[in-house]
């Protein structure tokens, strides 16, 4: 005997209306999203000869040595090491700069906090192209051009306004009692900041650092403009130069591309939720 449908079941049934077509369309969209990545995996395992006779299909024999060849000829080891330095310095620096600024804006006495928020919003919406050319000449004069620190400094500047606004919203939600208690015990502001405030906004720091770090890993325009020395290049630019040759070996480029993609993909799949929410709020703030 059919029971009276409950509210939840009725909702579920309504949700399932027209299900086969919905799933068909979803599968088509997913194939569009993932197809090129599958092609890249296949190509990375093919010899150049096989790639020209069988460009899109499964590789007949997995040519694993593409990865070792690509690793060496695209300078992936140097590139990944440089990217690791640039990404971690960017993430840590953005967290410290923005954490301190958010703390000052929420808990300390700063002149015109509203004007500072406004300034941050304006600064995040300025196009990089507006300040690129004078910045390059300035960096050359200061000796920061073609140094990793020079690039990291730029990343700090462009990624910290958003992180500040994010951390500010975290800090507002936390009652000031812990800090006040520490101050009563005679702790100075630096101690309060490092021992109390930073641990309290840890989830926000993780999101802000993750977003800034991954943006720095994928960033192209500034990296290609401000770094020349092949020993200092991040992996993105190493891969860019590798695919610029007159005759491109697509199999090796695909292998190198996969090497660059894997660390990113691993981080994304592990921290999917934090990542998506963090990126979503970046999109909204930019």
């Amino acid at each position: 005997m059919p029971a009276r449908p409950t509210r939840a079941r009725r909702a579920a049934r309504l949700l399932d209306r027209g299900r086969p077509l919905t799933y068909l369309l979803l599968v088509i969209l997913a194939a569009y999203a993932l197809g090129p990545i599958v092609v890249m995996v296949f190509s990375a395992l093919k010899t150049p000869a096989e790639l020209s006779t069988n460009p899109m299909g499964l590789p007949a024999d997995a040519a694993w040595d593409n990865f070792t060849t690509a690793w060496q000829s695209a300078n992936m080891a140097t590139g990944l090491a440089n990217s690791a330095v640039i990404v971690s310095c960017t993430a840590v620096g953005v967290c410290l700069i923005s954490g301190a600024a958010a703390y000052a804006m929420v808990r300390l006495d700063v002149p015109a906090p509203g004007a500072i928020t406004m300034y941050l919003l304006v600064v995040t919406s300025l196009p990089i192209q507006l300040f690129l050319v004078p910045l390059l000449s300035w960096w050359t004069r200061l000796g920061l051009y073609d140094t990793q620190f020079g690039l990291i400094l730029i990343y700090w500047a462009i990624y910290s306004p958003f992180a500040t606004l994010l951390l500010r919203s975290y800090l507002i939600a936390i009652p000031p009692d812990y800090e006040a208690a520490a101050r009563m015990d005679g702790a100075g502001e630096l101690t309060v900041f490092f021992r109390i405030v930073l641990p309290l906004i840890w989830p926000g720091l993780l999101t802000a650092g993750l977003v800034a770090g991954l943006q720095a890993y994928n960033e192209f325009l500034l990296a290609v403009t401000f770094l020349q020395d092949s020993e200092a290049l991040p992996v993105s630019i190493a891969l860019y130069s590798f695919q610029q040759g007159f005759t491109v070996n697509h199999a090796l480029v695909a292998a190198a591309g996969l090497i660059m993609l894997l660390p990113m993909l691993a981080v994304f799949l592990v921290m999917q939720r934090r990542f998506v929410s963090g990126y979503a709020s970046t999109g909204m703030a930019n």
Partner: protein
Amino acid sequence: MSVAVTGTGGAVRPPRPPARRRGPNRRLTGLLFLAPLLIVNVLVIAGPAMMSVAYSFTDWDGINTPDFVGTANYEALVGDPAFHRALGHNLVWTLFFLTVPMGMGLLGAYLLSRVRRGRTLFRIAFFIPYVVATVVSAAVWRQILSPDAGIGPALASFGVPWVGDVNALGDPDLALGAIAMINNWQWWGFLVMLFLTAMQSVNPSLYEAARLDGAGRFREFWHVTLPGIRPTLVFLFLMTIIWSFLVFDFVYILTQGGPAGSTDMLSTLLYRTAFSESRAGVASAVGVVMAVISAVTIAGYLVLRRRLRWEV
């Protein structure tokens, strides 16, 4: 009654800890904590941005001392066919990104909002291209669109006519569309996620009311879903316009504005003018034009919002 509170309460209750520290000393501390942010921002962004505005009125070459030339750079841009062409490409790009990725993003989010099983997996699948670095996406699509190891010859081997030797990125008629399509691949999944978040916050009782009125699925989408996500939709329209006038990465990596200028954008024009031709004054003027386009778009949005009393 209030008199009694001051009597005993004040003595027993410990003084409430101050929420903020105040006074001149405190203000100095606040500024010190704010200083790193303000210093790097002024050094990297605000300072050079203002310099750019100043340089746009000079004949600066990027190295030597510039001379004031009035509005000559802007006048040169007005009469420059390359500038017109780049601006036109940015407009085409804007129209493409206001329609194709928006439509795909809405479709993907709407479909996802209708299913339970597998939703997370599909969501991750749609979002993955956004995580792929631009240089990597460019590399894989360069292969897929290449005439010697791409999808064209693969289809031709199945008997599909015409596509066998098409070089989409090397053909002036096709290159801009090809790059837009590649950028769309990376972009639309991000829109799915933002639209899905918005759709999930639409009041479910509105859908039930629509169903009681016998609305079909399309009318339900048109009259309930779209109005329900209007703030996100409007915001992304605005952002799409702004981003479309700044686009650089895919164009520079794939074609550098070629072949024959057929994919040149304001950003690649600026880059070439500044760094290959050493006409940094003109490049600064292009940068100012780009900033003005962003500013006008934002201003238009704010005016519209006030006129129509949108709550965003």
